[in-house]
């Protein structure tokens, strides 16, 4: 865990050095159980930075969200680095970005934060109700201390941590320039039992489940926009030439959208769960992503976002790859 003052000091140091053009981190939100991601450009703003168990968002998403505006003639583009604060899960996004050459290692300054888990807003609301004031929460080894609506309480991890944290395999950043705080012990593992359970259902049951879920989707594309791995210049989902998916919302287009996106995340999804978190319609997007994560692991012994030197999964092969179902 990290002392916020250490974090702020580091941020100030980096920002005032002039080597970075922006720093991405978290600041206190205006209400509720989630912090707000923030982008700061000046050391004077560094005191807003925080890190605690409300910092659920993945700041790596904002690296690729930055628009590259046309550079006026005669001027040079600002090629200074981007600094980004990352938890363990977030750091995998950076690694995967590097695998995919979204930027080069020298373009980023990584402030790695060991993490004991972040809370799930939906779970917390079920326990404590809505929180009109910003909540403070600190994850500890044996639970989460949370200050909500004027009271301080301690809840077990299982009750309140985000699902991703309850199966976190990388609580410490897998890549970092400035590790902030002491490494934490890994406390969980992922057996994909949720996926295995779902796999057991019959095709009819599976479809019945997805039919209901997909039909809810309003195609706001928040899941795509927030995803650190969805940063294509032109996304096939909204592309018109050719038009793979129509904009109209119905079960067919929605289903295809979800399959398309899940497919595009195969071997790339780093399980930050942002997509599912942001969905206003509570669609369990991770049930698709995790299926692929599991299969990719089992079939190809591959895990994205852990090795910056790795080859992209679907741009490589092994002559011994499984041949299931092939006649």
């Amino acid at each position, binding site marked *: 865990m990290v002392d916020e003052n250490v974090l702020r000091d580091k941020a100030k140091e980096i920002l005032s050095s002039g080597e970075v053009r922006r720093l991405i981190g978290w600041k206190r*939100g*205006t*209400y509720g159980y989630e912090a707000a*991601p923030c982008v700061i450009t000046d050391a004077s703003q560094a005191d807003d930075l925080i890190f605690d168990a409300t910092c659920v968002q993945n700041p790596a998403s904002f690296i690729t*969200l930055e628009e590259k505006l046309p550079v006026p003639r005669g001027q040079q583009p600002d090629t200074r680095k981007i600094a980004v604060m990352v938890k363990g899960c977030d750091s995998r996004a950076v690694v995967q970005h590097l695998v995919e050459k979204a930027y080069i290692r020298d373009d980023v300054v990584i402030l790695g934060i060991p993490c004991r888990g972040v809370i799930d807003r939906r779970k917390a609301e079920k326990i404590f109700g809505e929180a009109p004031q910003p909540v403070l929460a600190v994850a500890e080894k044996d639970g989460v201390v949370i200050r909500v609506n004027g009271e301080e309480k301690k809840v077990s991890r299982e009750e309140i941590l985000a699902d991703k944290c309850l199966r976190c395999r990388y609580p410490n950043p897998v890549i970092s320039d400035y590790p902030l705080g002491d490494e934490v012990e890994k406390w969980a593992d992922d057996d994909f039992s949720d996926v295995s359970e779902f796999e057991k259902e019959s095709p009819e049951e599976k479809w019945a489940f997805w039919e209901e879920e997909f039909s809810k989707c309003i195609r706001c594309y*928040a899941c795509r*926009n*927030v995803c650190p791995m969805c940063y294509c210049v032109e996304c096939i989902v909204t592309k018109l030439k050719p038009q793979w998916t129509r904009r109209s919302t*119905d079960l067919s287009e929605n289903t295809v959208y979800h399959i398309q996106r899940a497919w595009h995340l195969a071997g790339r999804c780093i399980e930050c769960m942002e997509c599912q978190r942001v969905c206003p319609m509570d669609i369990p997007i991770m049930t698709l992503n995790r299926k692929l994560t599991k299969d990719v692991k089992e079939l190809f012994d591959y895990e994205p976002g852990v090795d910056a030197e790795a080859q992209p999964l679907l741009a490589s092969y092994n002559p011994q790859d499984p041949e299931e179902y092939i006649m």
Partner: protein
Amino acid sequence: MGDYKILKEKVPDFIKALDKFEVFAPVKKGDTVRFEKIDDPSRATLDFSNTNVPPKELMFPETETLFRYRVVSTEIEPKVPSDEEKRVVLGIRPCDAMAFSIVDRLFGWDFPDPYYQKRRENSILVGLACAEPCSNCFCTSLGGGPANEEPLDAILYDLGEFYYLKTITDKSEAFVSSAGDALESAGDSERAQATELAGSAEKKIKRTIKTEGIPEKLPSLYDHEFWTQYSNRCLGCGICTFLCPTCHCFDIQDEIEAFDGRRARMWDTCMFAEYTLHASGHNPRPTRKERTRNRISHKYSYFPTKFGVIACVGCGRCINFCPVNIDIIDVLQKSKEV
């Protein structure tokens, strides 16, 4: 107008009795609530905070066919809703209802929009007064309130064992008369309880914004850096607008299947980059900064300038659902300070 009550267990009977109408009511799927056409009365719920998707979709659906055609012919077949499709919408929150009176101005302006208007005319809106406003509700700042009646035809109050139903317009009498046994009459005591409920609910609303001066101030912030504080973290997802009961932007696209085609309109949002992208590649709103500015300014400056009313009802959805805590009250407050 009339005062009635419906025992909670009779709600399904009540819905069943409305068989001359298409009934729309909130339906729960997991933790999400959304209006749906009710065929099985037991699916309707009146126990919810607010629907995820506002009931604007009932007048202005996510995707709607404007007309159909055969690609090879020159005939077109409009798909305007018919006069016969009478509907009752049960359980609209007062804020969402108020949004209709705002959006009405747009759809009624100059070229009336027959699709929207036909559905509005065909619908009887039965509101549901709020007892427990959500923590980000700020309807009172925009002239609304937990039991605001404009433009409802009737309103329900949850009074424990039963709902108190107050009819407001002549239109509502038509449907009340068809409801039969499910309705009992009510009187002053229920009315008083309802008023109390509304009063106490109003007190629970914590968030406010003073809107005076904002419409005038915003245009002066056109180039102001303050927008980037927000736009930098905006995902450009459009949740805030899709789920906004007053946002009404749409796209029109042709879709063809073999030789059959339709021209349809579907929700669109000014938060999408493609929204203003010209065929030439030029985009007058190239970054999220311009888009964030447009959303807020449209609601709080452009719309009031043009139509005399702020295009926001304070339902709190954009605050609740924005994944990155872009909080419109916060934005407006800051806009006053800078």
